[in-house]
């Protein structure tokens, strides 16, 4: 070994060695899996501004041509396809998809009323809430389904509305089916559509989520979509957008303008590196630290209660383009405790973040942020929990109102 050799060349040579052929059985396995795996409709996570100006027109038209083509009532004896489409439509496939899925859907709703065996008809049964009974535990006594038609239902999928009845209670659920897949698919986000995936007597069904090893739980219903406990460093929920300029979609198509709610354990305002433990001793100290920085545009904190714990509520309104810093690790990753990370511009084209000595510096998005700084009960792994609700000024109030039931549902559970 000689010191004169180029180490970069050696490293490059080192990487040239090794396996570089994917065995055929892997291709075969992939092929088998994709035959059983429906493609998701396009759902954007990040806010962009390139919404097709004609899309709302198309979507409005789509909403007008939702039609019933199949209906079956167990007790009433109606047959599938017995009710024709309400409106003729070039995109309405009134017989093909319906007949192709009749057996599956009939078997599915029969099994749900019977109280067993429905799992075999669904790709991921554990995702289907109220499979055999209502929230009160009442078993279903009858059921029916209808196909929901619109323009370009998610890319070849057929969508079905399944209705189940238990006395006066009616549960409605949205299922999808692909011609290539004999199983029905249920998605907690309704495949990005504006249709709540499950309603009970017309109200979207709230789903429970547990975070931080279930020390913190919350309940959220459509139009909120929350992350799985382990998907991202900080739990967060996205709110399907609505309001001026954003019309409903029935095709799961392009989504713009998600608003978000984050949970941040033991939040840190400043400092360098990702230390363990709270950056402030309590919510009051953290609120004072936030208020002490004029650039953050923080409002005076107001005492509230969240999950039975004392908390402070305040807004942070940092002007777009303002330079802000958040703690980061030595690899340049933003610390999960960084309370300003939700308003740090990370996604826009051309945005840049610099890292030095455990601090990431960039510019603010201009979104407003409602903070709940909660002094959690003793015995939990964290001392402070922050709930950060983030939205542009124009939709801020709507998002706060939509987030209120989620915040109200937060509970703390000591291990």
């Amino acid at each position: 070994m000689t010191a004169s050799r180029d180490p970069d060349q050696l490293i490059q040579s080192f990487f040239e060695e090794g396996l570089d052929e994917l065995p055929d059985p892997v291709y075969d396995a992939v092929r088998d899996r994709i035959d059983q795996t429906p493609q998701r409709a396009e759902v954007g996570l990040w806010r962009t501004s390139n919404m097709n100006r004609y899309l709302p027109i198309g979507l409005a038209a789509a909403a007008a041509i939702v039609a019933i083509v199949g209906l079956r009532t167990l007790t009433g004896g109606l047959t599938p396809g017995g009710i024709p489409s309400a409106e003729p439509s070039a995109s309405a496939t009134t017989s093909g998809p319906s007949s192709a899925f009749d057996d599956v859907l009939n078997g599915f709703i029969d099994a749900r009323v019977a109280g067993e065996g429905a799992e075999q008809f669904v790709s991921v049964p554990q995702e289907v809430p109220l499979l055999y009974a209502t929230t009160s535990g009442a078993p279903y006594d009858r059921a029916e389904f209808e196909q929901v038609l619109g323009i370009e239902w998610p890319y070849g999928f057929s969508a079905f509305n399944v209705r189940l009845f238990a006395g006066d209670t009616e549960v409605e659920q949205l299922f999808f089916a692909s011609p290539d897949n004999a199983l029905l698919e249920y998605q907690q986000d309704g495949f990005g559509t504006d249709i709540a995936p499950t309603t009970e007597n017309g109200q979207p069904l709230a789903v429970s989520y547990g975070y931080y090893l279930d020390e913190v739980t919350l309940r959220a219903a459509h139009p909120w979509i929350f992350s799985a406990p382990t998907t991202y460093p900080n739990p967060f929920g996205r709110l399907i957008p609505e309001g001026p300029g954003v019309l409903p979609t029935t095709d799961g198509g392009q989504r713009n303008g998600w608003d978000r709610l984050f949970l941040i354990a033991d939040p840190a305002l400043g400092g360098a590196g990702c230390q363990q433990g709270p950056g402030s001793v309590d919510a009051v100290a953290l609120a004072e630290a936030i208020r002490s920085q004029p650039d953050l545009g923080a409002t005076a904190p107001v005492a509230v209660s969240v999950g039975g714990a004392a908390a402070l509520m305040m807004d942070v309104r940092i002007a777009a383009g303002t330079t802000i810093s958040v703690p980061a690790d030595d690899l340049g990753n933003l610390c999960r405790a960084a309370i300003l990370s939700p308003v740090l511009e990370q996604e826009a084209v051309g945005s840049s973040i610099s890292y030095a000595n455990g601090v990431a510096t960039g510019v603010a998005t201009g979104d407003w942020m409602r903070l709940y700084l909660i002094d959690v009960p003793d015995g939990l792994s964290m001392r402070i929990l922050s709930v950060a609700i983030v939205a542009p000024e124009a939709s801020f109030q709507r998002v706060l109102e939509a987030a209120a039931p989620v915040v109200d549902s937060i509970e703390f559970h000591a291990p």
Partner: protein
Amino acid sequence: MQATLVDRAKQGDAEAFDSLARMVGDRCMAIAFRILRDGDLAEDAVQTALITAWRELRSLRNPDLFEPWLHRILTHACYAEARHRTRWAAGIRVIPAEPVHGVDNTLTVDDRDQLERALRRLTVEQRAVLVFHYYLGLPISEVAERIGIPVGTAKSRLHHATRAMRASLEADARSSTTQERMA
């Protein structure tokens, strides 16, 4: 050709996606193996990535960017494999005595051993940056784009990882020199 297959696959054409997978599979395997240093884990990561790609394909706006997009998915699949499998942590691997395909003949068995050990001490995120930079030959800005991290993060990871790899070679050189002197 590839873009056409992507378009067809986006419409749910499984045959087209199968053809697409066979076009890009070997390169994915090469990348995954170099990140994970384990053939079985690499196969699992590629399989996961391809299925994820199929499932999420409709979110890909530009068919020409299929492969970079797939590489980002693959990288995250590698992260998941590395974290979920304890087998990787065992870090036991036979170092080939003879170079395999197309190897620079200046790379010795000792070099490989040192580099392998150094690589295994790096995080999987750092290894990914190294692979995209040294194996695929991408500039750091493109590495960042492909992995989906800020350029600053990519630079930081590359700097740290390259320094560690170089240090392993220098340590080996010092060791060899010492042994030569002792002899």
